[in-house]
């Protein structure tokens, strides 16, 4: 999710002037973009030392926390938008995290690698776990402990009581609206509590 065009596409999902919480904010590029181009404010949460430092260098508010420990720092409904980009697949308790996201924010935006993207299916069909640009790790050495598909998320969102108001795929910097579960390497959803 560091590609410039991806960031711009995601940024368009965030209403101008929003109070934003970016979970797993990386080097803070998106928060800086939202601040500079959409007058947004807020915080990023990041665990990695190098990325925390990068955020501070950018002048982006960053809080060093392990997301697996929850969002107890944040009150109910204290943000307009909670972003979770390319993060969900690294967390142990995906479902609890989604509930927490819905608790602290009015709107949630998530993105994650779509395991059902056709090259991945092909790879598994050939009997091997996929190693691609979006899923660049070997199965035995990957931070992606929760791989899911575009279609899987729709099911989970329903279970958690989220109303999806925007869903599309991303592939090589372009929006994929046709058969995203097959044709997109990354899945993107925007949702609200239903």
């Amino acid at each position, binding site marked *: 999710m560091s590609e410039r065009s991806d960031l711009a596409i995601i940024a368009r999902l965030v209403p101008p002037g929003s109070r934003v919480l970016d979970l797993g904010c990386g080097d803070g590029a998106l928060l800086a973009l939202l601040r500079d181009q959409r007058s947004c404010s807020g915080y990023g949460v990041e665990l990695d030392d190098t990325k925390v430092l990068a955020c501070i*260098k950018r002048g982006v508010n960053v*809080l060093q926390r392990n997301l697996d420990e929850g969002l107890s*720092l944040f009150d109910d409904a204290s943000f307009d938008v909670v972003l979770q980009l390319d993060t969900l697949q690294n967390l142990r308790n995906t479902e609890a995290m989604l509930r927490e996201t819905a608790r602290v924010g009015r709107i949630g935006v998530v993105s994650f690698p779509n395991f059902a993207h056709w090259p991945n299916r092909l790879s598994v069909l050939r009997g091997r776990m996929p190693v691609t640009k979006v899923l660049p790790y070997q199965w035995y050495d990957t931070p992606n402990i929760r791989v899911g598909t575009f279609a899987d998320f729709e099911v989970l969102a329903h279970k958690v009581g989220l109303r999806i108001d925007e869903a599309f795929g991303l592939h090589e910097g372009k929006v994929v609206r046709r058969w995203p579960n097959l044709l997109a390497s990354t899945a993107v959803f925007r949702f609200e509590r239903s």
Partner: protein
Amino acid sequence: MRHCIAVACAPNLSAQNIAFNEVARRAIITDPDFHGGDYYAHGVVPKRGLRVARMLGHITYLSDDVMDEKFGRGMRNGERVYSTQEVEFQIEGYLRHQGDKFSEYFDANTYLLITRALDYFDPAREHGGDLTRAFAAAIARFLVVSFTTDWRFSPLRSREIVKALVDNGLDVSYAEIEAPHGHDAFLLDDARYHGVLRAYFERIAHEVGASAGPAVPVHITAPTQAGALRST
């Protein structure tokens, strides 16, 4: 104030922290040379009390791991001498040395007052114990830093500060530095810690258009035992 950097802090002292302070104070006050605080009039200094106070302090500034790594069970002379009064273990020599040094330069009454002031420090108190309300009037931007092995002013306490700032929507960044040295880490040269501080100061310099040396009022707070008692 436009910026506040809070390193290895707490919003107030815990009962355990007050307890440590009280032991240190009792050591000083019960020293026969204390003379109710008028020791200079008697031409003496309650050095024994100051030494013990400092030894206790030093234990709390270090983590168990780092103390073990530095001293372990090492003996000063290699062999046991079966004395209860001599220095046998290296850690004892270290603590005595720190105590001796401290008792030479630190004024006992100042020690009592500083530790009491730390006990009293509690900005939430006049807001019914609500730290969020205590910060409501703040306008500064904050950098909060804690160290993972600091058990005297633990990351948990720093997170309370962060939460109160976030509740108020204030600008805050928080770094939880993985350092082995306990509370002492804030005095030491740790690349991650210094990296974060440098980056924050560079942002301030950038903000005020300075190329070298921030010309903006910056307040670094470390209202901690070591911070207050470690002017030299």
